[in-house]
Every structure is written in C-alpha cells, then in structure tokens.
C-alpha cells in the first residue's frame, strides 16, 4: 500500500545508518517490527522526537519471539534501556539489534555481553554474578557445591590479577579466544 507518510527524514535515516550496523532498509524493517509490538502507541511518523521519547513497556517487548524464550531476556532489556527500567524507545531497540547483528564487531559485542552478565551492575563479574549466570543457563540444575566448583574454576582460569572477580579487561581477554562467541551472540531479525 502506498505510504505517503515517510517514517523518518532522510537525515535521520542517514544518522541511524552511520550509528548502527544496519542499512536503511533493515532499519525500516526493524521499525515495522517495533511498531507491530504496540501499534496504538507508536506513530507512523517518527520525524520528530518520537524515536527518543515514545517508550514501549518492558513486558510488551519481551513478547517478541526473538526474546521470549531467552533466559537472559530481562537483563538484555535492562542493559539496553535507559536507567535500566526495561522500557525501550525505538533508538534503544535499534541499538539492541544492531549489537546483536551479524555485522557488529567483536569489541562491541563483548562490551554488551559483559554488561548482560553483570547482574548487580557494579562493573565486575564477581562470584554472585557468575553463579546467577550459571543458574540461568542450567535452570537450577546444579547443586550449590557444583556451582561453587565451577565458579572457582572459572575464576582460576580467567582472573589474571587474582582479585576474585573478572574485570572487563579479563573478560575481553577470554572472549577474544572463544571461537564460538560471534556466532552465539547473534539474533536474527
């Protein structure tokens, strides 16, 4: 159907293209997905400030099929939204999928992976963060002893300066050696 209303101004589209790893067609596709989540809240015309002000609620975003079954979904929404509320504007939404796209560089993926695994948000992956990650991964299958053992082993291998937690630098050092990381940290939209 011929849509005479253009969703974004050409300057906006160009800015988005420059800031993310998407082409303009992909950006429009993502916008259509975003709008389909809450058609009454999100206008067709985003040429003003709507891309930064209109927010879709947290639980609506989590109904997306790409995120619905992900055990880390709450944390992902929290990381990409402002102030960790989980309610996302279109720009944050776009940002999220840009980081998860295939074209994103390893560096930016590792930054956001670190933020996602950092449950308490203190800038380190300490024992409780790692334990929470294990819990999410195995759905509470391992006993506390086993979890402690695994976390100890992880810290033994990855914690280079021996302070009991992984800083970003140590995390990145590990991730750069993981061949599977780029493939698994990827969501197709």
């Amino acid at each position, binding site marked *: 159907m011929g849509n005479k209303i253009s969703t974004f101004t050409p300057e906006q589209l160009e800015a988005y293209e420059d800031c993310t790893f998407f082409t303009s067609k992909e950006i429009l596709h993502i916008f259509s997905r975003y709008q389909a989540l809450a058609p009454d809240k999100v206008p067709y015309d985003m040429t003003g400030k709507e891309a930064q002000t209109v927010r879709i609620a947290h639980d609506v975003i989590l109904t997306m099929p790409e995120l619905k079954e992900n055990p880390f979904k709450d944390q992902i929404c929290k990381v990409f939204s402002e102030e960790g509320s989980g309610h996302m504007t279109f720009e944050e939404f776009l940002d999220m999928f840009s980081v998860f796209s295939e074209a994103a560089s390893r560096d*930016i993926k590792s930054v956001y992976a670190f933020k996602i695994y950092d449950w308490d948000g203190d800038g380190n992956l300490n024992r409780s963060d790692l334990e929470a990650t294990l819990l999410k991964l195995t759905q509470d299958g391992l006993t506390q002893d086993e979890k*402690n053992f695994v976390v100890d082993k992880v810290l033994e*291998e990855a914690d280079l*300066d021996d302070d*009991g937690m992984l800083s970003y630098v140590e995390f990145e050092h590990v991730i750069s050696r993981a061949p599977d990381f780029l*493939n698994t940290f*990827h969501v197709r939209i």
Partner: protein
Amino acid sequence: MSHPYQNTGDFDTIPMHQFNPAFQSASLERQSALPPDGTHYEFATYGYPETRAHLEPPGPELHRGGFRSLHRTQTTDNRYGDNRETKDDIAMENLLKRLPSRQLESAANNAAKTLHRRHSRNKSRHGAIYHSTLRDGDLEDMIGSSSLLDADEEERVEEAIRSTPATMATRRSMIQKLSSRKRKSPGFMKRMNYSIGMGWKHFKDNMAELKYTMQLWHSHLKKIEGHFGTNVLSYFVFLKWLLLINIPTLLLTLGFIVAPQIIYRWLQQDTLGYISSEKFSGMELLTGAGWFEPTELYYGYYTNKTIQVIGSKSYKMQVAYLFTCGGYYLLTIIILGQSILSSYRKYYIEAGGFQSMQIVFKVLCSWDHGLTSAEAVKLKHKSVYLEFKEYLAGANKDKMRKTMIDRCKLFWLRVFTNVVVLVLIGASGYLVFYLSGTQLNRNTLFSNQTTSAAGVSTNETKNPWLLLVLPLCIGLIHRIMPIMFDFIEGYEQYEIPKSELYMHLSRSMVLRVTTLSVLVIYWYTEVSQSPDVPCWETFMGQELYRLVIVDFIFTLFSTLISELIRRLLVGRVKRVTHPTFALARNTLELIYSQALCWLGTFFAPLLSLIVIIKLIIIFYIKMISVLQNCKPSERPWRATWSHTIFLGYLFLFYLLTTVAVACGIIFIKPSIGCGPYQGKDVMYSVVPELVDSWKEEYAWISTVIYFVSSPGFIAAILVALGMGVYMIRTIMMGRQEAVQRLKQQLVLEGKDKTFLLNLLNQVTERHTCTSVSTTVRPLTQQISPQDDIVSPGGRVFVRSLAESTLGGR
C-alpha cells in the same frame, strides 16, 4: 619529591585480609584454606629496593598466583564486625572503583582505539595518526585541525563511532559534530579525491542494500536457527555459500562458451545437432544420453571453427574454451582462499592454554541467543546442563594411566583397523575399475553418436538402465562404506569424540577420492584410446552428469530413510531413537557434489547449472525434513571449528580436481571427430600457437615469455617464496613468545597492583583521619589519551593518588 612510603617501616604487622576486598568477599572455602594457627609470615618484596621491608623468603603460597603472603596476628577477632574495618572496606572499594581497568567505558574505548589504529596503520596518509578517545571534547583532536577528511578516514571514524558503547543519543551527537565542523576549502586534487571516495562509498552502500533485498532464504534460515541453533544452521549456510560460488562459474560458461556456440549455429544455419533420431523421452534426464548428447550440454558439440561475428572480428572458439576454463578455476581458487583465510582468522585466534579455558567458554559463551522455539530452548538447557555434568565428572576422576601392555594392544589394534579400512577402500576402487571395464564393452550397444558428419551408428539393444549401473554402484559404495567405518571405529576406543569424528571424515573422504581417481584414470587411459567411443570427452561428461543425478537421488532417499521413516518408527519400534540432523555426513555429501561439478564443467559446460538447480532442490527438501522430523541434538557441537575443517576438505577436493582436469588438458589427445580441439595433438597446444601468433606482431613478447618460462627464473621465484614463508614463520614464533612473556607480565602487574594498593591504603589510613574517597577528585579524565600503556598498577595512577592524598593531609 620524596617517596611517600619511605618512612614507614613497620607495615608488616597489618593484617592483610583487612585491606584486600578479595578476602572480604571470600567464601567459606577460601577462608578455610588459611592455616588456622596465627602463623606469622613476613612480607616478601620482589625487587622493590626502596621499601624497607624485611627481605625474607616468601611464605607458602595459599592459592595460585598469589605471592600475597599472610600477615595475621590474631585471625579471629579482626575478621568480622569492626566499625573501623568497614570504613576501610568502603575506602578500599572506592579506591578500586577508580582504577582505570575498572572503568568499563575507558577500557572499551581503548578497544575501539585499537580497532581504529589497526586500520589507520594500514592506510594512514599524510602521516596523520588519530587518537580516538571518543568523548565529546576529544572529537576535535581526533579530526585534526587541518584538512578535509577524505572518505576513507571518515569511514574509519564512523566505524570507531559505531563500536563505541555509548547510547544512541551520544553517538548521534558525535556524528553531528563530525559533519558540522568547519571545513577549510580544499584544493582541487583533494576535492576530486573526496568525490571519488564518496562515490565509492555510496556504491558500497547501495550494494549492501541490494544484498539485503535479494537475500536468499532469509526467513527460512531464521526459522531453522530458531529451532535448532547455529549448528544445524551452519549446514544450510554452507549450502547457500556453495550455491553462490557456482554462479560466477555458470555466468562465465554461459557468456563465453554457450552463447557464442548458439550464435554460431544461428549464423551458419548449421544443421548440425538436434537432429538425432531419438525423440526426447524422460529417460534422458537420468542418463544424459540420447537426446541430450548432441547439445550444448556436452563438450562434443562445440565447434572448433573461428566464428565470424561482425565484419572482420572473429571469435576463436578454441582459445575461448580453454581460457574460460582457466578463468573460472582461477576465480574459484580466489574465493576459496579468501574464505578459508577469513574463517581461520576469525575462529582460530591464537589460543595457548585453549584446553583449560573450556570451562570459561562454557559459562560465558555457550548460550545461543538465536534460539527462539520453546522446545529448542529446553533442549539447549538440558544440553548445557549435561556439558557441565560431564565436565564435573571429568575433572573429578583421575585419569588412569594405561599400562604399557594396554597401550601396545591399542596401537596394534588401530594399525589393524587402518589396514582393514585401506583394504576396503582398495576393494571398492577395484570394483569401480571392473565395472567401468564391463560398461565400456557394453557401450557400443546403446550409444548414439550423431555429433559428426561421420554417419549415425545404429543402436541395437537400447537399455538405458545399463548406463546407470556404474553410478548406482558408486553411490551405494559411498553410502554403505561409512556405515562400516562407523562399525570399525566402535572398536577403536577413541577417548575424545572429536578425534573419532576426524577419523571418520578423513576415511570417507579418502574413499571418495579413491573412487573418483580410479574413474578419471580409467577414462583418461582406456576410454580415450578405445575405438568404440568416438568422443571420449562427451562420454566423460555424460558419466559425470549421471554421477551427479544419481548422487542427488541417493541424497533424497537417505533423507527419506534416515529422517522421515525413523520419525515414524519412533513410537512403534523399540530402540529407535528420534532422528537428529547428521551434520558431518550431509556436509561431506555437499562437498563431494561440488567436487563433481568442478571436475565435470570442462567436459559438460552446463553442469554448473544442473548443480545449482540440484542445490536449490536439496535445500528445500532438507529444510522441510529437518523442521518436520528432527529434534535438536543434545550433544554439543563446535560449529566454528568444523566449518574451517570442511572448508579445508573443500579446498583439497578442489586442488585434486584441478590437477585432474589439467592432466586431461595437457597430456591426453583430444578426439578427432568432435569438440573444439579436433585434430590437435593436445588441447593445451592452443596456447603455444596463440603465443606464436603474437610473436609476429609483438616481438618483445617472445623474449619475455622465454625468460619467464626458463628454469632459472622459476627456480628463483620458488626460492624467494620459500624464504618468504620461512621469514613469516619466524616472525610468528617470535610473536608467540612475546605473547607468553606479556601474559606473565600481566600476572605480575596484577600482583604489583595488590601490593601497592595495600601499601597505599596503609599510608592513607595513617595520614588522613577522614575517609579518602570524598576528597579525591575522579581520576579517569586525567589519564591522557596518548598514554595507553598505563597498567592497572601504573605509576601515573599511583603518583596522582599519592599526590592527592598528601595534598589532602
């Protein structure tokens, strides 16, 4: 200025655990590792001569990597619940928070900086080197005050901005600043440079858009990924990639070989061909003989004449055929080489200690975010859980050392099984050879050669099924032998499943290589000499066509049997488990079919079209079968490791087929009655003739060619290449050593940091009564962008902190 620590002499009595947050948050396990008696250890000071600690040998290390020795006077009452102690904890915490290594954003900016510098080192013109600390204020430094950024540099800046982990709003403002700064009016050359660069950039953007709109099967791949994860997806992505690399081959052959032939026929109104007495029956699709024979499908049809196109311009078919063949082989090797190298670089980054990092990878990288179906997610949870259980079990049990006798027995067992495997492979080779022989004898009975004007040979008993005997046998061998190999491998007692898979793949590959080489050698030696076969190249093309079709039929059947029927039998029959997608076997079949395509395109130019159609049909069939019948497998699979291995196998097959075709071109006499090379000694003789014809026009070419093909020159090139490889290897070894040394340095720096922080905290605690944190201004902005070698325990940090504490006294 005086060193702030020089006057303290008795810091050896301060309890260590008070100041180290690691100890504070230590679990019960760690604390229980401390010896319970209040043993007194001294500080060890490695190489810090200015401190006045006692130089005693270090106490026993309590956990790996820590030269941190214990100082405890009374362990019990200082451990918990002191008011003063919690304030120091907070102080320590705040101190640690300000460390550069803890500042996520600056660390990530360093990462972006390295990315930026990597590019700029390759392409820095005008000697400009950029610092990309991408904070707002620093953007001005980055851009540099002088000239217009040309498109290259602007692109790099954009790339660096994309990789900044700031919010979208920040990035947009950066971009705006980038585009809105004042530009000096540039000179003419710069403007032209800029416009060319921008034009190229726009072209690349448009290509990316086009690629997106024409994305093949995007929704299908997404569905598969959602249900099965990246492992099964890698098969389908590989299939799509094979399809795409066949397209240039097809375009080249269509453009340079098939189209001129059709034009020639049109121009000459030649009645050659298409007048066979055969009517088109469906059988031809299977056998490739009959109606298909005198058509563009096969080599024998092509003319050897020079086609007069327009006026005096002529098109030499002989030259075109050979050079097109060379062209698509060259193109394929470039594409393959690039893919292998990029895959290797991406996935096989230098490890060192790779084995022990597995547990960290399991925790941090094992979740596949692309999974969307609930069932797949459940299975993935289970699979991850099983992996952890396996790891825990493996870590706990001691590896039993096999006795000498056991090892000897295993060794001889493996030798025996390998001999058995080789015998099997040899037997299949002989079987193929025998069948080819009998088929040749039968060939005269049903072949139908009408390519040349030399009359139509009558055909007596027409049984096209006989033609298919050989391909069917080969197909059966290729399917049944791996099952036997599986059976044998059960006895070989491999410990690591990865090596078992390796062996299985190698054996299947050797089997296929053997059968193909027997066939090719037979064709080159016997068939080309045989008087019964007037056009051996067409014969070869037909055989390869039949092999491709039969392989396709077998793939369909095996999908049917292994997936559909197994699923139907799951509930009914005992011991039949749910089918999972057999990734390795399927990928190997794809590689084999591609090898057939490469082998056959010279002799049957439209074979690449047939293979493309075959790949499309296989994609849809496999996709439907997988989605309907299979369940995701519970065992983990390294998709990236195996991707590189499969590319390696593909490359090996490619080399072998190139060698085979080259042998045919250079050594075997082409048939007299058909094809572009009728009557020549060898097909390759076209090239010297062409060069000779140039010699008349351009005399210097002959000297150049004489020089280049002389043995001295070639030897010199080989020696230079060898030296280049050796040099690069030496550099690589040197870098590996440097990496090791840097790793050790990293560990030592960590130790430095803890040591210095403890000293520091002690000093600050001594000299300031109020808490340290509130009076000291944040430090991150002070670290200048150029100084990127500040280690976490670096001097700058310590010095500035020390200055501020002394200033705050």
